[in-house]
């Protein structure tokens, strides 16, 4: 059994293990689950130089020509690392009280980890589509069982949006298959093979549009975001982390993997329109965040805004912008996880996420206040912190193509400062209004915050190691376009 197969199977085995461990106490369960969820990360780090190029391939369903084909390239590896990192973080964020049947939650999160590892390495279009939809199921369960008061409708809305967005994906997959069969005699779902002829497929525009729609809904690109605020706010804290830090990246990975590699000319042609939507999304998310009186919703909208910033980087055909977008996809995951954690801890202490009747909390919980401020500064792209590198690269790349649009997009950085600092000011720095005493950060929370801060500073101060993996991925995309249009 190859290394990659091991990496892929571990989470499933751990998930099954936790399902049957319902009898243990909460503490043991948590240690067990977190330990299990760290296994992929340890494996990744231990065999680090071996991963790029490793693959698993066997005919899984020969009569339908589906090959179970997983393959790691630099782009995959980045997202695999992200998955291996975020899942343990979200498991650590599981509250210790008031959380029924935690073992099922751990099992679902580990299941999600396995599905995501499969998704980010899938090299067969059917397997890709299978994992693409399969990852929704654990999230649906998580939202609708452990979520807030309106969790049922939020979960249903979430999954229906997703299913509707990718409903026609199977037809698009089949269309590619049969066009490859028409061209080369035998049909295939292999992504490399398909990328050779996908653009010449009849109705390539429609097929590409079907894929893009699916990715746009999941990321979400403005205006396909209507599911987002409810799902993010109704999900339990660890679920919100999963949604914001991982799920949105699945859409971005889809655009990179399928959109750019299979339909480069299409993305080039639609670039201006998509860029326009993404920039509209950045503004919309920012303005909506400004008007929120609930800080969880505020962060949800800020996430929408930042994700659209990443998309804006993807839709400019320029290597620097792509590098920035890929790097920013990772940065955003770390920062948004940190922000939701900070917000979640605050909500846990206050019992509400409303900003109306609170203020001056810095006097009561100084540590949480300063940690939150640090994460907020990371989110607003303070130089020296991670988001600055990514957003700067995106703006830099965009500037080469279109200076005016860059000016417009640059303005949104100010917008994000406005809404984020408004939150900080209202909640932490105004006149103290609180009567009761609240507890400051606990050791476990400090540890989580510290590890996230380490990552934020690392990418912010010394981005070279991360960029070393981002660059080949972005270069590959450039190479594809050159092959398409030899100009």
């Amino acid at each position, binding site marked *: 059994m190859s290394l990659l197969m091991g990496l892929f199977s571990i989470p499933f085995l751990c998930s099954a293990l936790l399902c049957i461990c319902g009898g243990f106490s909460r503490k043991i369960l948590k240690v067990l689950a977190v330990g299990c969820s760290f296994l992929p990360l340890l494996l990744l780090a231990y065999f680090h130089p071996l991963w790029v190029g490793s693959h698993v391939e066997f005919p899984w369903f020969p009569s*339908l020509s589906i090959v179970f084909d997983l393959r790691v390239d630099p782009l995959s590896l980045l997202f695999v690392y992200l998955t291996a990192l975020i899942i343990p973080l979200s498991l650590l964020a599981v509250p210790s009280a008031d959380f029924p049947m935690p073992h099922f939650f751990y099992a679902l999160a580990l299941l999600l980890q396995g599905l995501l590892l499969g998704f980010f390495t899938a090299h067969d279009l059917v397997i890709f589509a299978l994992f693409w939809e399969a990852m929704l199921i654990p999230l649906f369960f998580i939202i*609708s069982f452990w979520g807030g008061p309106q969790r049922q409708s939020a979960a249903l809305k979430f999954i*229906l949006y997703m299913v509707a967005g990718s409903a026609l994906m*199977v*037809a698009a997959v089949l269309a590619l298959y049969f066009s490859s069969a028409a061209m080369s005699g035998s049909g295939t779902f292999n992504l490399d093979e398909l990328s050779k002829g996908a653009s010449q497929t009849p109705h390539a525009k429609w097929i590409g549009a079907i894929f893009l729609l699916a990715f746009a809904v999941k990321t979400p690109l403005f205006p396909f975001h209507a599911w987002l605020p409810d799902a993010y706010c109704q999900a339990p804290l660890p679920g919100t982390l999963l949604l914001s830090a991982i799920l949105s990246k699945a859409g971005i990975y889809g655009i990179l993997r399928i959109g750019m590699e299979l339909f480069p000319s299409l993305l080039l042609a639609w670039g201006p329109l998509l860029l326009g939507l993404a920039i509209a999304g950045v503004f919309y998310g920012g303005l909506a965040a400004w008007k929120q009186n609930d800080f969880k919703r505020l962060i949800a909208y800020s996430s929408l805004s930042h994700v659209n910033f990443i998309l804006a980087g993807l839709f400019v055909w320029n290597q620097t912008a792509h590098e920035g977008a890929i790097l920013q996809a990772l940065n955003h995951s770390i920062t948004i996880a940190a922000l939701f954690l900070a917000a979640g801890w605050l909500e846990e202490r206050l019992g509400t996420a409303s900003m109306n009747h609170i203020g001056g909390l810095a006097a009561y919980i100084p540590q949480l206040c300063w940690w939150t401020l640090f994460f907020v500064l990371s989110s607003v792209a303070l130089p020296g912190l991670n988001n600055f590198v990514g957003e700067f690269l995106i703006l830099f790349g965009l500037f080469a193509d279109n200076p005016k649009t860059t000016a417009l997009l640059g303005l949104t950085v100010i917008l994000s400062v406005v809404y984020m600092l408004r939150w900080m000011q209202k909640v932490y720095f105004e006149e103290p209004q609180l009567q009761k005493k609240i507890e400051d950060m606990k050791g476990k929370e400090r540890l989580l915050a510290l590890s996230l801060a380490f990552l934020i500073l690392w990418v912010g101060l010394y981005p070279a190691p991360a960029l070393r993996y981002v660059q080949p991925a972005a270069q590959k995309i450039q190479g594809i376009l050159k092959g398409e249009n030899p100009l």
Partner: protein
Amino acid sequence: MSALSLHDLHALSPYLILVLTALCILLLEAFSSPLAHRFSASLTFLALAIALYAAYFAPASENRLLTPWLRFDALGRVFNLLFLGIGVFSTLLSAAFFQRFKKVSRGEYFFLFLSALFGLLLIGAAADFLILFLGFETLSISLYVLCGYMKKWTMSHESAMKYFFTGAIAAAFLLYGIALIYGAVGTTHLPSLNGAYHALATSSDQALFLAGIAFVTIGLAFKAAIVPFHAWAPDVYDGSPNPVTAFMAVGTKTGAFVAFSTIFLESLLQFDRFWNEGMAVLAYLTLLYGNFVALRQRQLRRFFAYSGISHAGFLMIPLVASTSDALPALLFYVVVYALATFGSFAILAPLDHREEGVLLEDLRGLFQRAPLQATILALCLLTLGGIPPTAGFLAKFAIFKVGFEAGYYGLVTVGLLTTVLSAYYYLRIVGAMLSASTETSKQVPPLPTAAFVGLVSFGAILLFSWFPAPLLALFLG
């Protein structure tokens, strides 16, 4: 060779075992009702187990008394095993039902059930239209009674009457169609139909044949609950006892589609484009109607009627496509559908304690009350909804691939879009299970036989989700 040899009896053994056991149970009920009450379920189960064994090892008969009427090939054996498997699951569910409703007499029930199953086996083994018709009549007449088996349920009276009348009309259509076909080509032997049709010289004969085919199609469409011949299904499913509903949802539907496929995917494969186009129209209607109406159901037996209609729509896609891959894809879907439906009914069985059956509200909080049962039901529902990574997705994928290959892009698109609706109504049930437990909801009593069905379905679905290839290979070879 004119008389039946021992070898032939061996070939016929699965059918004989069923008939003989059925008669034994009837006699037992007549002479000693208490004994029948105690043993008929186990007797039926035992007989089915032996029949399964016999069907697997039954040799092919070459006796000319039998071969014009029954098929003994590999596919015929697969059908037999499939139907007997359905029989085993239904028996176990019936046993669970009788544990909930202790006072109801059982001997007659299992006699009728075995007769119905015998009818199903005949449908699968038919090499001639007459056997096919005989199979359908045996199945239906037993089912008319089984639908009304709970004599004190007022809903059941309506259900049985409705089923009887529509079933009689369907039988009339089927028989009349067979007569017309016989009139046109002079044979009712299925394998010779295609040659005889293409040898027809005059267009009036062809018209006669096509009219016959149209009647046969309508007759089968009634049985398969295809729109617009579906109107009986919701009321009949609604008013029948749970295991009978499960048997109808799986058995009758499978029987009808097996009949469709022996006629139209084996004997008359691509005999006339006209038929495929007509079926395509019905498939559109079935998919849209079944899925839209299922959105609003609260009573679960009724819900399964509508979801069953929508699955009939999906199963029609390979029939419409009529390619060489169509039959394996159809059978794969049928098996997955059968497992998921039985699994769902097995979980519903312990909750079933009144005439109205299980309502959506009864499932509230099931995940907290009974996590294992809720997990099984959730997996079955996700499978029915065709949501990855379950085998249901692969089954739908295979069907859509067949449809796409044959060029029915519109049908595939509508099919895919309706999966969004089906995702809603299946996940709504899952959502209800995950919601907070209400105080009125009671503990779930254990029913070992139903639990067994649930676990087996659960295991099989998991297995086929990971290793789907062997199952499909079974139908290919």
